[in-house]
């Protein structure tokens, strides 16, 4: 089932992220996705990874669609100006990509070309300011492009707040709902109770919320997130569990399964970030009884 249909039918959506590989044949990627065929509603292919550049994302989207995996083109406005952005959106649309996931994207802290300028000419949620033109078959400058270019758009929301969600965040979600976002994607959820408090507090305006779940393999990885992404993002008890576990993989799978089980009654799906190791994803899905 395609992502759009799953969202409309209010199924518990499962999506995952894979990397457009620089150093291997994309066919290998398809082979590892075959291991989880039928268990995903969509697969996101980001344009940038923490290490730096990746291969041709749109081409990989095309390949996944050909192989009947509903591709979600994940783009950012950090590394391109509006000319390149429109060009990429058009190319993705022409290639048959139906889904888009957009982030403003973090300040670049790792990977290649740290000294390169960052654009942010359009911010992610309001990428709609570009899309609304393209949806009507025009560029932002009003030139006809011959056809309507539209996508199911997922947009990131900051869900790290417990119950004290600032008005500012609420306003942001309201604005995104008004401009027609297809679903909200949360920031990574490690503490289900905190996420529950966030959801209780916010009005999601009927827009489905998909929780991002990052597969933590080691305590070091968790500490990296806390140090570089956001302090306190991964709770200490979780880091301790991973650090002390004699079998790290087993602990990692358990943590994932517990998180997903907790989310099933809270929101409309999960977006799984594997950070490599796609071939092992099925064991995580099994443990969390995701189809």
């Amino acid at each position, binding site marked *: 089932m395609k992502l759009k249909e799953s969202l409309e039918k209010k199924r518990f959506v499962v999506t995952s992220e894979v990397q457009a590989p620089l150093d291997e044949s994309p066919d290998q990627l398809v082979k590892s996705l075959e291991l989880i065929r039928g268990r995903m509603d969509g697969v996101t292919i980001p344009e940038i990874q923490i290490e730096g550049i990746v291969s041709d994302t749109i081409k990989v989207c095309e390949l996944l669609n050909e192989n009947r995996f509903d591709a979600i083109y994940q783009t950012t406005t950090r590394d391109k100006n509006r000319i390149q952005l429109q060009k990429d959106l058009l190319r993705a649309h022409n290639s048959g990509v139906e889904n888009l996931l957009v*982030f403003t994207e973090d*300040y670049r802290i790792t990977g290649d070309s740290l000294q390169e300028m960052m654009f942010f*000419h*359009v*911010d992610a949620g309001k990428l709609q300011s570009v899309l609304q033109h393209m949806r009507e078959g025009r560029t*932002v400058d009003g030139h006809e492009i011959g056809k309507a270019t539209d996508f199911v758009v997922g947009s990131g929301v*900051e869900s790290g707040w417990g119950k004290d969600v600032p008005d*500012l965040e609420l306003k*942001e979600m309201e*604005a995104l709902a008004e401009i027609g976002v297809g679903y909200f994607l949360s920031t990574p959820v490690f503490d289900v109770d905190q996420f529950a408090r966030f959801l209780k507090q916010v009005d999601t305006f009927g827009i489905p919320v998909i929780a991002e779940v990052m597969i933590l393999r080691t305590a070091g990885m968790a500490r990296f997130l806390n140090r570089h992404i956001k302090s306190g993002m991964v709770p200490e008890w979780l880091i301790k569990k991973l650090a002390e576990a004699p079998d790290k993989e087993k602990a990692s799978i358990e943590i994932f399964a517990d998180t997903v089980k907790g989310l099933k009654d809270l929101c409309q799906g999960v977006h799984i970030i594997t950070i490599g190791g796609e071939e092992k994803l099925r064991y995580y899905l099994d443990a969390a009884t995701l189809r």
Partner: protein
Amino acid sequence: MIRSITRKKSEEEIDRLLSGLGRIFLIGCGTCVTLTRTGGAPEVAQMKEQLTEKGKLVTGSTVLPVACDNLTGETLREFGPQMDLADALLVMTCAFGVQTVARQMKTMVVPALDTLFIGKETGPGRFDEVCTQCGTCIIGETGGICPVTTCHKGLVNGPCGGTDNGKCEIDPEKDCAWTLIYNRLKELDRLDSMRVLQKPRNHQGEPRPGKIAFG
């Protein structure tokens, strides 16, 4: 008061820029760089020591009152013989000063500082960048706070996910511009202006280099 904010270049870079140049004349400035302690009299004296230790001959030095003033050339000509002896002028001012000197003197100029931004003094020794002179001012809609400058990402349509309890993801010492704007608009009972979807920004408000002549 606004000031040109500078930072001393690394010793390695200065060494590289002065490589093969044995005789140096030093120029500081009595205005911004004196205030920021990057090119006032004490820093010029320190630089003289640094260069002498490295075997350079400092032919002379001066701290100009205002290096970016058009009178700079006239002032410097008083040091004619000392400057004539020099292979290069090491200029410890902001880039405005360096370029003023470069335009008026025939000797090669070498900057000793990097110019970071035009800063608004917010307290003793504290400066904030509040305007980048983009030529398309939108602060009439953002409570008088510029998101183009104050938001690291220059976002004009509300905050990104990196806002963290009123601070910015890139530096906990820096305020989140959109939290400041939100609070200000709330105070003014003008939160509705945050709902207006700003079009993609005009990045060519004043194509570089800016140049104007008032009649």
